[in-house]
């Protein structure tokens, strides 16, 4: 039987999300279908270099903000 993956709680764009533990930032990006070239990402209030997304591990209680451009004056 497949071992049940433990989940961790993170805050993504203001919302609590449960994601599998030991997930990388790049997996998270894929999971939420984020167009990486059109966004900026803040991890715990620090902008991350998008080149490093497969080196960054998501940890319990991390706060992520993913932003993009929308219409504005």
């Amino acid at each position, binding site marked *: 039987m497949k071992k049940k993956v433990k989940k961790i709680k993170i805050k993504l764009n203001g919302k609590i999300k449960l994601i599998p533990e030991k997930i990388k930032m790049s997996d998270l990006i894929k999971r939420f279908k984020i167009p990486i070239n059109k966004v900026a990402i803040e991890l715990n209030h620090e902008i991350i270099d998008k080149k490093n997304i497969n080196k960054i591990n998501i940890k319990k209680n991390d706060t992520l903000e993913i*932003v993009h451009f929308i219409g504005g004056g």
Partner: protein
Amino acid sequence: MGVKLKKDKLIIANQKFDSRLIVGTGKYKNMSECAKAVKLSGANIVTVAVRRVNISDKKKPLLMDYIDPKKITYLPNTAGCFNSEEALRTLRLARDIGGWNLVKLEVLGDKKNLFPDMIETIKSTEVLANEGFKIMVYCTDDPLMAKRLENSGASAIMPLAAPIGSGLGIQNKINIKIIRDQTKLPLIIDAGLGQASDAVIAMELGCDGVLVNTAIAKAKKPYEMALAFKNGVIAGRQSYLAGRINRTLSGGPSSPFEGII
């Protein structure tokens, strides 16, 4: 034969633009209406806001799919920021999206009239200039504050004509003229315009450009108004460059008296 006008470009932080009209991309019914209005306006620069990606609705259309940032310069703004910290955070993120250094700073201080908080604005300008940003700054029409902004490292001064979205037109022409005469920086009227003639007036006062959003997006016919503003900016600029006649209180006939019957 038509009159050949000299190549007259808008230059901001060493970047050259053909159009002196900058348009906002907010308040449209949908993205395609926005994209068409932008195209008709002839604008080379559009302002955009930085907001959270909608993670629950992945099919939501993206602005970049409608307006190509390789063809039109995106000017990220800090709309909705009420202090320096929020504004800096927003623009640092904006720069990271696509390497934009040219940004619009707007730090609001008053929720009712959306007037800029000039103390926070000047503070933010200094920090951003030190970080290599080229900052176009939304500001009050106070010549002293405009001077301070210039000294803080702004790349363009953008005083309001009237409150954002009010459509009232330029309320203080004298201040705009004073700011024009004291600065060599690009001077762009940002906010408060209501119709194309307001853009003509701004350009005739010697402004380098105008930034318009609501007046186009919320016009009964946005496409027609986009064109009207395009033409208004061109007419106003040409009128300014042509040099108007002096004002006199007495009349002067346009036809000669000589040879009168």
